[in-house]
């Protein structure tokens, strides 16, 4: 399941996994759960960079001669 979610399987393996998912509702619902969870982790963890930090980073640039 994890390699399929991470898209690290080769074409044959992907076809096998998909064929299995098509016929197995147990795995299919858990697959959908994993997809939603990953999406949720990504959104929940997204924190905006403070504007002041961006200014500080810009200030680190090499001054133009």
């Amino acid at each position, binding site marked *: 399941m994890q390699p399929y979610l991470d898209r690290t399987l080769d074409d044959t393996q992907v076809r096998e996994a998909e064929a299995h998912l098509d016929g197995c509702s147990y795995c299919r619902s858990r697959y959908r759960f994993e997809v939603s*969870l990953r999406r949720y982790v990504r959104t*929940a963890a997204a924190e905006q960079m403070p504007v002041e930090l961006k200014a500080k980073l810009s200030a*680190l640039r090499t001054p*133009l001669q």
Partner: protein
Amino acid sequence: MSEPTQTDARRIAEEARERVRFEEEALDLSDQVFRVARHLVGSREEAEDLMQETYARAFRSWRSFTPGTNLRAWLLRILTNLNIDRGRRQQRTPQTTSIDEHPDYYLYNKIEEAEGRPLDEERVIEKLSQGSIVDALAHVPHDFRDVLVLVDIGEFSYADTAQILDIPIGTVMSRLHRARRILKGELAEEVAT
């Protein structure tokens, strides 16, 4: 003497242009770098310090970046190295003696059990708060969390992650697998309580 001087001047001007271009591209990526950095360390303050150190280092050593390669990965390589140099191993994160690991579907089953009926996936996710995800992430031990954060939040490939952390790709995969289990275990605790 005037010929070489002109050539020198042209070369210097060209280099200055390249540097400016590099700095602008690096700054454009800073939001994305921060998003990852924020979860590699324990607090927002630490993340901000680490970002500044990283960018100071990057601007100093811009010549060692190969144009056309992945600049975001290059910046994160610097950042993760600096983070390790800072002796983060002594920092926070209560390193639990035994890591709770559960089977792949543990979280799903646990939530389903708590609800007492089969669930639709979206509803399951709604049961998890944003804060619980952030806390759960912070409880994943460093080595595992680095991989999880780079792959799942930074959306780096296994290959890029391996390069950033300087570990074999097989280690990326096994750590990622364990990291996800640990994360889900943490979330399951939350749901169960």
